[in-house]
């Protein structure tokens, strides 16, 4: 509970400061006060739900696909050392593609449906997932590998008993970095063509100078990404209890 406070307090304080500034008239007109945004959300909860759910769905779907593909790619890169560099290279190049520019092109190829959205999310989130998987699968201790080799462990057993558990801290780091990227990817994809979703709400509000709704969409994205991050932290804490047996003086 204390941890929760420590994590969320700076954000809450920022919101309070913004509200104070707005009431004092110190903020320009294109920055609404958090109170106004909250009131807008309160007034139209249906708008929020109807549009958050498709965005969250696409972000989750693309994230899962990217996680599975990068883990498989990292598995191949680890098993066949000759392609290790090639896998990394492909990841870097895909990551360097500016999604904002390619989204309209992908919309031309794949249409503006769910498929295009998921592909963009996967592209936006893949690199941290790939790095986490590659570094993680290579992180197994050489002496542990010898120990399992001496027991004639199969490739699969080596993966299951050693490589996967050693990779977990790295995988979780990748998950945490990739989560907001997936949300961002979903919004970007919706900009390229969608009639529902937070990105669509944002774009429509921008065109009609509905500043409050733009900010409502922005904050909804932040809140969703923050919650997803918190969920990863909780899972990580219970999955990696062995990793925190060192107690440093405080």
């Amino acid at each position, binding site marked *: 509970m204390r941890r929760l406070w420590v994590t969320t307090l700076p954000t809450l304080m920022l919101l309070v400061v913004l509200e104070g500034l707005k009431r004092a008239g110190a903020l320009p007109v294109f920055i609404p006060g958090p109170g106004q945004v909250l009131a807008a959300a309160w007034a139209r909860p249906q708008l929020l739900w109807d549009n958050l759910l498709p965005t969250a769905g696409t972000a989750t779907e693309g994230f899962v696909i990217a996680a599975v593909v990068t883990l498989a790619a990292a598995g191949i890169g680890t098993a066949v050392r000759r392609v290790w560099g090639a896998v990394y290279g492909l990841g870097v190049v895909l990551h360097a593609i500016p999604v904002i520019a390619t989204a309209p092109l992908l919309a031309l190829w794949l249409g503006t449906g769910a498929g295009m959205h998921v592909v963009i999310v996967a592209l936006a989130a893949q690199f941290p997932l790939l790095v986490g998987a590659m570094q993680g699968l290579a992180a197994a201790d050489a002496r*542990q590998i010898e120990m399992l080799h001496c027991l004639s462990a199969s490739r699969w057993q080596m993966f299951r008993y050693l490589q996967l558990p050693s990779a977990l801290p790295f995988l979780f780091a990748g998950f945490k970095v990739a989560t907001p990227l997936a949300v961002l990817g979903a919004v970007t994809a919706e900009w390229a063509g969608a009639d529902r979703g937070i990105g669509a709400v944002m774009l429509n509000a921008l065109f009609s100078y509905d500043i409050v709704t733009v900010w409502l969409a922005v904050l909804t994205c932040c809140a969703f990404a923050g919650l997803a991050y918190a969920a990863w932290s909780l899972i990580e804490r219970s999955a990696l209890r062995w990793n925190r047996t060192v107690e440093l003086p405080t």
Partner: protein
Amino acid sequence: MSSRELVIDRVSLVFHGRGDPVIALDSASLALPGGGFGAIIGPSGCGKSTLLRLVADILRPDAGSIRLGGQTQRQARQEHAIGFVFQQPTLLPWRSVLQNVELPLAIVGRRSGRGGALSPAELIELVGLKGFENALPGELSGGMQQRAAIARALVLRPDILLLDEPFGALDEITRQRMNLELLRIWAESGTTALLVTHSIAEAVFMADRVFVMSPRPGRVAQTVEVALPRPRTLEMMRSPELFASANEVRDGLFGRTGHPSAVNAESW
């Protein structure tokens, strides 16, 4: 049969790391009868760990051959006939002590070891870790971790047990107790045991045959037969036979011997 004769015949190995190649072993030979207890002693860096890793088929020799009960080291490993206690405990940090000791069983896909093998719980009690079954390795002292690693090496009841300074991290009292326990387990199981140690007294007290290694290049310079009867008792630590063998080993280590050449495996 649950023991195997170990014959290492003129084995050589060169490490090609960064920099100059290191001749870790040059024509090293030794022989240990089935069910025998051998000890390897020699200065740091002379290739003791390397020799054990060759026997366990972790490294391949550049030349020479290794036979365990007539089989190659690869066949022996694939039959799960080799137990290895490494110089570091190498426990999996995310598994409890019990789960670590059970790991070899999980890998061979059996619930218990071969006939007559002790259960994981019994082995944990034997090495004095009762009450710590559910502790994680990070919560144990170095010596406790090493004892858990010994229990793990015994759980499949191996035909040949390789021990690389297993008691280096233990205090004198625990070490003495573990040595006696190890001798008891060894005598009961009939396994062939090969122990690396830095202690002359420990080598002579434990082994039937002490192999003295010399460095650069690593080879077995001398073999000392220990004439003490079994079972060994702590009183024997003061016996003249032990003293004589210890002196012989000391002479081998410090080069005051008339026959420093490697002992040929065929002569056994």
